[in-house]
């Protein structure tokens, strides 16, 4: 252990070293950017007439980007007031001193890799000289503002051409349709009207066996049980379908399915990412909250507010704070040598972009370095959104589940006693207080030695707020803060003393004992949450997105093109969250219902579900989208109600069979003359397989689990988790521990997102690796064996009954005669082979200790089961 620590320390030492070299380097570079004005063309020798000499240059070459329409980098050059004010990085014109004027530096191309104007030819030395002369002579303007005509024209264009998604949805009237009997609810009227105008008829309703499987997979992510299928098939009541929908919406597995969808957007993971990729043992607590919120059908506006600003709510309940864990799913880079501020900024950028994309469907992140190229979001507006999150800080709080408190309180005194005794035995207290003093001193004392400075830095990198706690008066620290410092001290004291000394103190041994003790007395579950920084930084525009180049200061605010922020003296995250779910917001409801649609049909009405900007795909049914969006708001953001509305539509209930008549006319089924056939998600492939084989562990919520990883399945050196032994290895896919640098292979081969950034829509590929996964992965083969046993145990009768049963379990239907025939032949061939070679049968089905199992039968059933589990029909929802 110590060796490891030392190695690590070596590494960190060196990384820190390079860090400082680099800081120095960057600073040096900034200096060398101070331009040697010798390279400038000389000022022209003439008395400048603004209208004659300057206006044409500005008009032709500058105002395209720095005029009334756009003000890239915040600079506007069409009137003297703005022009002299300058842009985000300060004044561009210093009257009387062209040498120091940034405008001149930029047009003269003094800055490496950057010469303005961006398009067309460079300004000639003569033109630069004229501009210099103008500035040197005082940068005087003529009376006339040069761009007046253009301003008016542009303003008119702007109002006329407002992008559809930026105007609030208006509730459309229902279109008239001929085949009114087909329509079951308003959704159908919109879809049918489109189809009728195209002269296409909708598809018939899917058969009931198909419907029950579709509904179950879509609403809960699990296949229907045999009972659910037979009940629904036998239910002749007119409202049988609605009853089934209600039953599934009330299932506790509904929350799991929809939580996973939300986790894609939040880019949930159980580790930090980057080099160190530290584990996040508490990340699951937020997932637990999401599953629960989905199951309780928390209205989407509340769901939004609690996740973005739960800590700021007046009642500030624990669960509302836990909800802010949404914002903690950003990556963290703790690689030795990283600049903390750089990656803090990266985190805030990620939070800003995530919120922009998830709620507004806008790629606001594009405006980080420059004004958005396509959408009306300026760089300044990006940093105004950024400002809402810039004042946040990360904290971990105790967030016990209900059942934890009793046992915890009973055992706590004993734990405290034992810990205290251990610390006393190894004489920690005095050493620690001296270490604290010196480490704290090194924080500010530039004469402090290398080791102590390192000690301070490591405390910052390896603990959350450890540096803050160290500053506190030891008598004012909470027990937890004190314990954190003590644990850190024991682990890292070796930075400042020799190895010999550490050996004398036996700190390595102590560290092991403390860890063991902590395992025996598990502490309360914690949650990663967000809080306001008591000392909030001021937010600046970052020139070209670079944290080392702060520009002008900005205040929190909403993009001007959207609804205005609610009036309050100080805009906070809470203001932002409320603004997002205000009925006046044109985007949130549209974007959200569109993603619902995507889950039920495979594609959104707007196919680019992560982008509603000007470059977005046109909605296939704009009125339907607006109707759904207004309906969602009208129903107080009731999510289950919307899901119910969609799945009850005749549109949803159509058969997914391909139709030759649509091949040429609507190959991508945008008009929805049928349902789509969708390959199951990575998690659903796993869950469905485990469910039908009877292995699935259906317990809900809790910690992440570590099922077995196939040989070679770890993609990063040094990562190898302790696989779960018991029933935890059969938990649903959404609970699988997600380590960012080495994700679970089966999830990745089936297109689960890599959790590095927002994922608004998953791919659905079909690859040979998937085939090998389902055929040969021990997890899936074990499921085939279990399914074989299940069939033989539960139907110990004739083969045809068994096949019938297997089909109903896996596909919710009975086999067709052609299928029966082919599988009978296959089973016959298998049995013949196995009878010839009983050793193979034993290998395939090691019936250790199982009674009344005919190994040959079971082995043949294992592969037949596996065939069923590999069918396209099995891994798709139709």
């Amino acid at each position, binding site marked *: 252990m110590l060796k490891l620590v030392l190695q690590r320390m070596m590494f960190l030492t060196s990384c820190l070293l390079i860090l400082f070299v680099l800081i120095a380097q960057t600073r*040096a570079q900034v200096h060398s950017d101070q331009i040697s004005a010798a390279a400038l063309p000389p000022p022209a020798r003439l008395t400048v007439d603004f209208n004659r000499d300057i206006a044409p240059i500005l008009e032709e070459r500058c105002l395209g980007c720095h005029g009334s329409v756009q003000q890239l980098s915040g600079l506007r050059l069409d009137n003297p007031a703005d022009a002299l004010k300058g842009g985000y990085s300060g004044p561009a014109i210093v009257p009387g001193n062209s040498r120091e004027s940034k405008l001149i530096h930029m047009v003269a191309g003094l800055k490496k890799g950057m010469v303005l104007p961006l398009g067309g030819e460079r300004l000639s030395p003569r033109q630069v000289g004229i501009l210099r002369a103008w500035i040197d002579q005082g940068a005087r303007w003529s009376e006339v503002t040069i761009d007046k005509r253009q301003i008016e024209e542009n303003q008119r264009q702007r109002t006329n051409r407002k992008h559809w998604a930026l105007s609030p949805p208006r509730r459309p009237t229902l279109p008239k349709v001929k085949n009114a009997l087909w329509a079951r609810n308003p959704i159908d009227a919109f879809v049918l009207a489109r189809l009728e105008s195209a002269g296409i008829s909708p598809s018939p309703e899917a058969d009931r066996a198909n419907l029950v499987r579709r509904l179950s997979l879509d609403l809960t992510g699990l296949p229907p049980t045999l009972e659910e299928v037979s009940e629904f098939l036998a239910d002749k009541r007119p409202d049988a379908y609605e009853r089934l929908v209600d039953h599934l919406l009330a299932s506790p597995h509904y929350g799991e399915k929809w939580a996973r969808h939300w986790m894609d957007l939040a880019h949930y993971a159980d580790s930090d990412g980057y080099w160190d990729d530290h584990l996040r043992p508490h990340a699951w607590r937020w997932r637990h909250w999401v599953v629960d919120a989905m199951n309780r059908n928390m209205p989407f506006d509340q769901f939004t507010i609690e996740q973005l600003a739960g800590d700021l709510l007046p009642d500030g309940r624990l669960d509302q704070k836990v909800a802010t864990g949404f914002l903690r799913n950003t990556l963290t880079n703790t690689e030795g040598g990283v600049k903390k501020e750089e990656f803090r900024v990266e985190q805030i950028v990620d939070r800003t972009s995530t919120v922009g994309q998830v709620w507004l469907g806008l790629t606001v992140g594009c405006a980080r370095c420059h004004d958005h190229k396509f959408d009306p979001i300026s760089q300044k507006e990006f940093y105004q959104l950024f400002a809402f999150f810039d004042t946040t800080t990360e904290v971990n709080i105790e967030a016990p589940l209900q059942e934890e408190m009793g046992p915890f309180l009973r055992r706590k005194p004993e734990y405290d006693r034992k810990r205290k005794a251990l610390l006393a035995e190894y004489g920690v207290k005095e050493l620690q207080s001296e270490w604290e003093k010196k480490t704290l001193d090194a924080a500010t004392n530039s004469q402090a030695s290398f080791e102590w400075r390192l000690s301070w830095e490591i405390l910052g990198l390896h603990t959350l707020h450890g540096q803050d706690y160290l500053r506190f008066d030891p008598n004012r620290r909470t027990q937890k803060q004190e314990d954190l410092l003590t644990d850190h001290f024991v682990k890292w004291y070796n930075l400042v003393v020799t190895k010999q000394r550490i050996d004398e103190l036996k700190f390595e041994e102590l560290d092991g004992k403390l860890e063991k003790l902590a395992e025996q007395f598990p502490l309360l579950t914690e949650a990663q949450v967000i809080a306001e920084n008591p000392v909030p930084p001021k937010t600046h525009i970052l020139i070209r997105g670079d944290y080392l180049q702060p520009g002008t200061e900005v205040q929190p605010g909403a993009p001007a093109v959207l609804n205005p922020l609610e009036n309050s003296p100080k805009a906070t995250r809470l203001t932002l969250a409320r603004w997002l779910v205000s009925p006046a917001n044109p985007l949130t409801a549209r974007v959200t219902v569109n993603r619902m649609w995507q889950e039920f049909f495979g594609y959104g009405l707007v196919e680019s579900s992560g982008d509603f900007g000007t470059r977005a795909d046109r909605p296939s049914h704009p009125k339907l989208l607006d109707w759904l969006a207004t309906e969602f708001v009208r129903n107080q953001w009731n999510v289950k109600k919307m899901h119910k509305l969609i799945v009850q539509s005749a549109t949803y209930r159509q058969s997914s069979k391909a139709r030759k008549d649509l091949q040429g006319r609507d190959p991508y089924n945008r008009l929805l003359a049928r349902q789509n056939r969708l390959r199951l998600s990575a998690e659903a492939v796993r869950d469905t397989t485990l469910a039908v084989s009877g292995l699935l562990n259906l317990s809900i919520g809790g910690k992440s689990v570590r099922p077995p990883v196939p040989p070679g399945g770890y993609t990063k050196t040094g990562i190898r988790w302790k696989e779960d032994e018991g029933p935890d290895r059969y938990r649903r896919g959404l609970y699988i521990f997600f380590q960012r640098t080495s994700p679970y292979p089966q999830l*990745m081969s089936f297109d689960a997102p890599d959790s590095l950034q927002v994922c608004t829509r998953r791919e659905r*590929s079909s690859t040979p690796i998937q085939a090998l996964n389902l055929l040969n992965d021990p997890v899936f083969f074990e499921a085939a064996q279990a399914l074989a046993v299940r069939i033989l145990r539960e139907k110990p009768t004739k083969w045809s009954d068994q096949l019938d049963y297997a089909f109903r379990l896996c596909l919710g239907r009975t086999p067709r005669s052609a299928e029966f025939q082919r599988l009978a032949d296959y089973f016959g061939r298998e049995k013949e082979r196995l009878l010839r070679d009983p050793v193979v049968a034993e290998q395939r089905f090691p019936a250790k200790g199982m009674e009344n199992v005919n190994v040959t039968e079971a082995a043949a059933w294992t592969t037949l089961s596996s065939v069923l589990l590999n069918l*396209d029909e099995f891994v798709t929802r139709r």
Partner: protein
Amino acid sequence: MDFGDFRRTHGRRAFLQRFAGGLGTVGLWHLLSVDGFADSPDSLAGWNPLEPKKPHFTPRAKNVIFLFIEGGPSQLDLFDPKPEMKKWDGKPLPESMTQNLQLAFIKPTAQVWASPRIFTQHGDSGMDFSDWLPHLSSCADDICMIRSMVTEQFNHSTGQLMMSCGTPLVGRPSMGAWTTYGLGSESQNLPGYVVLGKATAAGSGIWSNGFLQSSYQGVPFRDKGDPVLYLSNPMGITQEAQHDRIKAIRDLGEIDYIETGDMEIAARMASYELAFRMQTASPELMDFSKESKDTLEMYGVNREPTHEFASKCLLARRMVERGVRFVQLISSGWDHHSDLNKNLKKNCDINDQPTAALLKDLKQRGLLDSTLVIWGGEFGRTPMIEDRKPIEQGSVGRDHHPFGFTMWMAGGGVKGGQVLGKTDDLGFHVVEDKIHVHDLHATILHCLGLNHEHLTFRHQGRNFRLTDVAGQVVHKLLA
């Protein structure tokens, strides 16, 4: 074993018409044509995402072997001799370099460490190599050495992402993914983009498909055991049983397809057939028994310390021979902060011979002209010493250095026997022909017949490319 029976009974016309050898596609086309969903084999175009695609212009190279030297190999001890450094050895950096330095922990007195290595010139071109590369130096005239690489990234994970994906950010496609996205793959039995070795810092991010379809993701191959995940059959499944199992799956898929008319069913069945071909082709790929004794000897396959790396290099050649488009071979552990003299030597002993053998072997088989070999890490190492006394006695190394480092390329359209670029006398900054990672990427794609500005993918409302918004083809590198 193959799907011959199926072919005989079903796919005659399609087979003869177009897909000689492409068994899966034959079955697939047959199915599509059964019910009038596909009128001609052409309607299959675009079904297989790895189907070979035409480059933008005539390529110089067809395949790439990227030897990724993870950790940051020391250019100053291998490729970039600096006799001037001897004068500065043990002294701080010259004043001119340190005047603006504000260091927090180390004083700007960090000492220059002149490389103790002996450099000699090799080949007709007289290219310099250190005495630790006796084998590679014999390939001097095939090597195009770049001594002027720069990157902005000085941490491992972000540096590796930059080198592999052209951005320090995670979640973007890697070079191999862009390549197979642009060109598909010639191999019918193996993945188009293969990774040999493990990542240490950035994890699977360095062979990620990013926002591209998962078919373009690098498939990690191991040189022992199962080369690909899930490749071997479970216990008790003989090859015959495996074949029959897949046949049964296809038999039912066929009924399903006729019933529903969904083309994706056919695509899924084709993927099972490719999976089976991978199962049969991979053991053949991994089987070195038909390689001559001389070849094995040349790589050092049967000896230590070269065994493991030699096996990977030989595998890379065998993959390229079989049409794999992009092989990314990761050699890890070059992060020599301490004990550089001992550890770098160790790395060279492992890598030098197999790397040279790979070049020679490709050349003697006529494959070097069509294969671009790239060698390099995420950055280089500092001219200054990193000294860990008193914590670790007598152990010195060098730090990460992004401002000027060395990479080399060979084969596939690059001009061998030349050295491009120059660093200053202390090996700190580039003073001639600066080549940024983006430029390198642009050049690599250029060799493959791809215009880096046109190889784009639209994602989140804008077109993305490997070179972001930068990169210029370095024509001086080209033959």
